[in-house]
Structures are given as structure tokens and as C-alpha cells.
């Protein structure tokens, strides 16, 4: 009896060894890395390549998805408490100064020498605004976001509409190149229910334009104007807020001028509402993120397939040329916390996602990731969601043009507070509660208070460092 039990035990042990022996990871160290990011389709690549990460790098991933608006606080709480809970973080670039400045993120310069990130292939804005702090690399790009002007190609090319526009404004109808033209075009296309639009009677109102009205991002729609009019966030020398400069006030006045031609509830508009009003065919033009262009080509999501036009966000005339700057709100980068126990393994994973699989990940409709590498812009055939390669080419060319004029969010510690204070005052001006000047003066006053709390000298040094890096990259005047 004893002998039989012993034989059975040895048999089980041998079979176990055989199974383990055939496993590719046997003998190799497999570690589990925890990834945090905003839940949903943008975390898909971590799932898709899990077998490769295990096979190639000996890494198993535990992916934690949190709601889009709560990612910052989840990451910050763990960083402050120094729990070492995460090994890879998706970070919104506006918090890079906050996180890297406080020493929460690992400096990647050392690793780039061992395994390159092909940063020369990354568009300058995404490389220097998104990933670098004080000239050092703290993250690699994962999702390139820049605002672009989307317009209804069919309406802008309609002969009747063109003639009517010319007789009303005295120049040809085209995608607006300047902010003044933007107001004209918005005014021209705003129609009531029962009015004619391109020969057809509208059953519902048609809007000239719309914008992101909720306070978490509204500043970026003001920022497009502000930046092209020459605005900067702070005076570099004194760190005195410069949002209440002439550029700021003019930008806000221009934004106010389009409000009558927007949906009445535009101040409640977030991403979804802004996307829907355009893709449902109820607005002539909107300024939106790149993913809206991709969705515009998908008949399941868009009623205007084949009618989507893409142009640079408007600007101002400077020495006979249009000078425009497109805000780069949101975006995503992959960073590695300084307290991870497996920095090299984490780096291998982020390098793979940012370099090896990036083109496949940004060109599929299964993610919301947008192009950020120069090579992405040169492979229109990969963007299969568009009806034709030509449509994909137009889309990529439009995004590239805006990206080359990119303008960063204020990526210094306290960005959340700065943005909130600015947004609240912008909305008050748009509602007519305050004049544009008063609203921005109030915002500037609040910014001074925030800077004082965070430490004037510390903030100044960081801001100067950031600006110096941007200037060296030719992105800042």
C-alpha cells in the first residue's frame, strides 16, 4: 500500500515537473506590475500584448482602471503616501510638473540609452510639452491630443451657401483662418428651425459652432485664442499671472461673440455633447480632439460620414500671415513611479507600447488613442476606419498641422487649481456676470494666491525651466 502511494506521489511530481518544464517562463523571473490608467478602451493595449510582455520581459500586468476624472487624485494619493502601489502610470501631461517636480516619477534618461524610445520620431510638442520636465525625460508618449477645427465640408462647398456668405460678409466662405472669420462663419450658419440650410428646411435649429463649456476643459477653448493672440500664462521673470493681459481679454471677448450662435446649453457641454452635436449634423463647425475625426468616418457613430473637413484652429494675422496655436489638452503619457521595485521591466513595457505597438494602437477604432509619432502621420493606410486612404491622409495632415502649432497646458504644480480658478471666471464672463477684464483680473488674483501658497520662488524656477526647454525646442517665442 505504502509503495503504491509513493509511486503515485512520484508520478504526480514528474508530471508537474514536465508541465512546468514546458512552460516558457519556467526558470525566468515573472513579476507582476501594477498599471493604473483611465478605464475603458485606452487600456486595451495592455490586455492585447499581455502574452508578449510575459514571454519577452517576464512581466504579468495587473491593470487598474479608474474613471477619467479621478485618475489624478488616485495617483497623487498613492504617491504622497509612498505606497509604491503602481509600477506604470498613465499620466495626463498637465500633471507632469506636479508629479515629476515632487520627485514621484522616475527619470528615464538613463534607460533611453539602453533601449531607445525613438523620441526623434515623436512630434516636438508631444515630446517637449508632454514628456519632459526641466529638460529630462520623465515619460514616453502614449496618446497625442491636440485640438483641431472640424467643419462641414459639404456645407462650406455648397454653391448657395457660398454665394449667400459672400454677399453678407464680402469674402469667400472657407474654413475660418482667423478668430474674426470664425465669428462670421458661426453667425452665418446659425439657423432656426424652419430655416433653409443648403437647400433643405431644418426641422430643428442648426448651430454655427459649439465649444467645451464645462469647467474642467473650457480654458483650452479660450486658450486657443489666447495663445494665438500672443498670451502666456505667467511673466517669466516675476511669475505674475498674465492671463488678464490684452491677449486674454481679447480672447475672451471673441469667445463671448460666438456664444449666441452656439446651443443654448453650451456651458453644460463636455466631450460627449460636443462630439454629438457635430457628428449628428447639428453644427457647422467645432474645435475638438483628433478622435472626433476618426469617429466622423465611422457610420455607426456619425451621420456626416464623408462630410468632415479638418483645418488648423484659427489664429490672428501677423505680418501678413496667420499665426495660430492649438491647445493640447488631455493627452496621455506613460510614466514609471520612482518607488517601483521593477523599473527596468516597467520601462520595457512602456517602451514597447510607445514604440513597437504605437502605430497599431493609434490607428484602430478600438482605442481612443491618437497619433503622436511622425511615422504615424506617414502611414494613412493603417487608419482603416476611414472610407478611403485619401480621407485618412486629409485627417492626418490636419492633425499634423495643428500639432506643429501646439500650445501646452500649464504643467506646473497646482495646475488643477489654476485651471479651475480660470475656468470659473471665464464662465462668469460668458454668462455676462462679469466683464471679460474683470473676470480675468479676478482669475489673475486667484492665481497669485495659488502661486504664493505653492511657493513663488519654487514655481518660478519650475516655470522658467519648462519655458527654457520649450524655447530650446523652438516651441516658445
Amino acid at each position, binding site marked *: 500500500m505504502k509503495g503504491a502511494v509513493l509511486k503515485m506521489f512520484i508520478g504526480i511530481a514528474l508530471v508537474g515537473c514536465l508541465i512546468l518544464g514546458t512552460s516558457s517562463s519556467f526558470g525566468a523571473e515573472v513579476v507582476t506590475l501594477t498599471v493604473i490608467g483611465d478605464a475603458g478602451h485606452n487600456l486595451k493595449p495592455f490586455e492585447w500584448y499581455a502574452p508578449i510582455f510575459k514571454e519577452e520581459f517576464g512581466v504579468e500586468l495587473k491593470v487598474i482602471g479608474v474613471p477619467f476624472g479621478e485618475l*489624478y*487624485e488616485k495617483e*497623487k494619493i498613492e504617491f*504622497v503616501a509612498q505606497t509604491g502601489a503602481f509600477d506604470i502610470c498613465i499620466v495626463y501631461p498637465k500633471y507632469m510638473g*506636479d508629479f515629476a517636480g*515632487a520627485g514621484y516619477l522616475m527619470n528615464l534618461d538613463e534607460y533611453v540609452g539602453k533601449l531607445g524610445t525613438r523620441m526623434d520620431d515623436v512630434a516636438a510638442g508631444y515630446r517637449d510639452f508632454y514628456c519632459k520636465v526641466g529638460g529630462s525625460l520623465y515619460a514616453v508618449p502614449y496618446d497625442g491630443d491636440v485640438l483641431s477645427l472640424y467643419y462641414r465640408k459639404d456645407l462650406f462647398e455648397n454653391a448657395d451657401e457660398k454665394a449667400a456668405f459672400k454677399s453678407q460678409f464680402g469674402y469667400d466662405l472657407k474654413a475660418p483662418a482667423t478668430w474674426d472669420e470664425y465669428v462670421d462663419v458661426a453667425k452665418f450658419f446659425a439657423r432656426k*428651425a424652419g430655416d433653409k440650410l443648403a437647400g433643405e428646411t431644418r426641422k*430643428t*435649429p442648426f448651430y454655427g459652432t459649439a465649444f467645451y*463649456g*464645462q*469647467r*474642467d476643459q473650457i480654458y483650452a477653448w479660450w486658450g486657443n485664442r489666447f495663445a494665438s493672440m500672443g498670451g502666456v500664462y505667467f511673466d517669466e521673470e516675476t511669475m505674475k499671472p498674465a492671463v488678464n493681459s490684452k491677449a486674454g481679454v481679447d480672447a475672451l471677448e471673441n469667445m463671448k461673440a460666438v456664444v449666441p450662435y452656439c*446651443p*443654448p*446649453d*453650451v*456651458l*453644460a*457641454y463636455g466631450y460627449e*455633447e460636443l462630439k*454629438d*452635436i457635430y457628428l*449628428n449634423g*447639428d453644427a457647422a463647425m467645432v474645435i475638438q480632439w483628433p478622435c472626433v475625426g476618426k469617429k466622423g468616418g465611422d457610420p455607426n457613430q456619425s451621420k456626416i460620414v464623408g462630410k468632415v473637413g479638418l483645418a488648423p484652429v484659427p489664429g490672428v494675422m501677423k505680418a501678413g500671415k496667420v499665426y495660430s496655436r492649438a491647445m493640447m489638452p488631455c493627452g496621455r503619457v506613460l510614466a514609471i513611479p520612482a518607488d517601483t521595485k521593477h523599473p527596468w521591466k516597467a520601462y520595457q513595457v512602456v517602451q514597447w507600447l510607445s514604440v513597437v505597438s504605437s502605430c497599431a494602437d493609434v490607428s484602430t477604432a478600438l482605442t481612443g488613442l491618437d497619433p503622436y509619432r511622425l511615422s504615424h502621420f506617414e502611414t494613412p493606410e493603417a487608419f482603416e476606419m476611414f472610407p478611403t486612404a485619401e480621407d485618412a491622409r486629409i485627417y492626418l495632415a490636419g492633425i499634423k498641422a495643428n500639432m506643429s502649432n501646439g500650445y501646452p497646458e500649464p504643467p506646473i*504644480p*497646482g495646475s*488643477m*487649481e489654476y485651471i*479651475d480658478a480660470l475656468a*470659473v*471666471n471665464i*464662465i*462668469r464672463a460668458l*454668462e455676462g*456676470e462679469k466683464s471679460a477684464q474683470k473676470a480675468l483680473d479676478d482669475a489673475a488674483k486667484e492665481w497669485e494666491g495659488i502661486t504664493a*501658497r*505653492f*511657493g513663488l520662488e519654487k514655481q518660478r524656477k519650475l516655470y522658467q525651466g519648462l519655458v527654457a526647454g520649450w524655447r530650446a525646442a523652438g516651441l516658445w517665442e
Partner: protein
Amino acid sequence: MRYGEKQKAALSFNIEKHIPLLFVLPCFIVLLSVSVFPFLYSLWLSFNKWELGIGQRSPTFAWLSNYARLFSDSRFLGSMENMAEVLVFGVGAQLLIGLGVALLLNRPFRGRSWVTTLFLLPMMICPVVVGCNWKMIYHYTYGPLNHILRLIGIGEGLNWLGSSDLALPSIIIADTWEWMPFMMIVLLAGLQSIPEELYEAAKVDGASRRQVFWYITLPSLKTIIIIAVLIRMMDTFKLFDLVALLTQGGPASASETISFYNYLTGFKFFNMGYAASLAYIQLAVIIIIASLFLRFLRKEEGE
């Protein structure tokens, strides 16, 4: 009895005396760690400056500066004003509609239990789902509410969530829809506990329906109304989910409630000391309201 036996007896007496305490101990430890400690810690924190946002690793004592800042903080004062509006109009509407529905459901009719259950449904739905649904309902262009208004010829519809004038009332309407059933069910239980003899006596005395309501129904419900309103007021003071989902406190800060502002201060701006002081002001207001109600209740019971 020998000395050793005496000791044993004393020991067993002591163990017996303390055994109940041992049973209570786990509960006491849990209570201490999840309730008493956080309460005292946050109170201490409210007298400290601790801004995680600026990388401050540990709190520094700041006397009453957080509380002093409250009086000059227009966002805080605005959120308190909004809160008062929600309490008066929201809880008020819930009480009036809840009472009306409870009076209707107090009459016997076929299928009454089904109708009562249907009325309770909004209260059973997850608040996040309620918020998402109301967001769709209120949508200016595609929402069913404005569609109906257009069909019946009331202009182009109302700007429910995008105007400072209507954003807070929109939240109040959604909150009333969700929580009116609570008032209804509590008041219905109260109505059903009123002795039938009182109504019969009033009928014999020739009292009109209005007199019956004012002199029998309402006085009999007084205690239960006070308790129901108090519970709803305490709950409404924490109003967060609908604000976050419908307006994010906007436009600007037009619909910001104290809970939402506290959330921004604590978990977006990471100003922990100030957030703690906001929480204690919130607590103080709730205590004052509750004590007023309870004093009124005691007075009623005394009579």
C-alpha cells in the same frame, strides 16, 4: 477556606465580571478605529495647514486660520447659499409631494400595493444611474423634456443645465424625483397608524374634509414629519452625486454644493486642513438643524 481558594474565587469572580467587556472589546476597537479616531483626527486636522498639493509632507498647526479663511471664501459662501436653497425647496417639495401621494395611497383602491411599489422605484435606483438618466432628460437639443416642451409649444425648450438660473433647480427636481418616495412611504406608514376612531368621531361631529386634515391628520403626523424632514435634510446636506453627474457644480460655481466644494478642496486641490474645516462647518450646521428639530419634537411630545 484556604488562602489559595480565596484567591481562585476572587479571580473567577473578576473574570466573570469582565467577560462581557471582552465581548464588547472587538466592537469597541472597530468603533474606535473607524469612527472615533477619524473624527478626532479630522478635527485636529482642521486646525492645521496640510497641503499635499504643494508637497507638504506633514501638517503644521495653524490655529484658526482655516476657519477664518471660510468667511472670505466666496466659493464656500456660495455653496452654503446653494445648500440652503436645496434644503428649503428640495426637501420642501419632497415633503409636500410625498404627503400628497401618501394621502392618495392611504385610500383603499384596487392595485394599491402595486402603485405604492411603483412609486418607490426611483429610490431603489443607484444614484449614479439617476444622474445619468436626468442628464439625458435635460439635454437641450436631444432631451425628451425639451422635446415635450416644444411639442406643446413652450418655446424652444429650457436651458436646464447650461444656465446659472436653472442648473440648481434642475438638480433639485432630480433629487426630488429620487427621494420623494422616501417621504411618501414614511408618511404613508404614519397615516396608517392614525386610529380610525378619530376619523369616525370627527365624522359624527360633522367635520369637513379640510377640518379633518388640519385638526386630525396633520397633528397626528407632526412627529413623523419632523423625523422624516430631519433625515432628508441630513442626507441632502451630503448632496454630491447629482451635482457631479449633472453639472459638476457649474456653470461656474452656480450649482456647487458644500459637499462638492469639499470634494474639490480635499481631492482635487489636496488642501486637507481646509477640507477638514469645511467638513466641520458642515457638521456644525447639521447639528444645529438637528437640535432645533429635536427641541421642537420634544416640545410636541411634552404637549
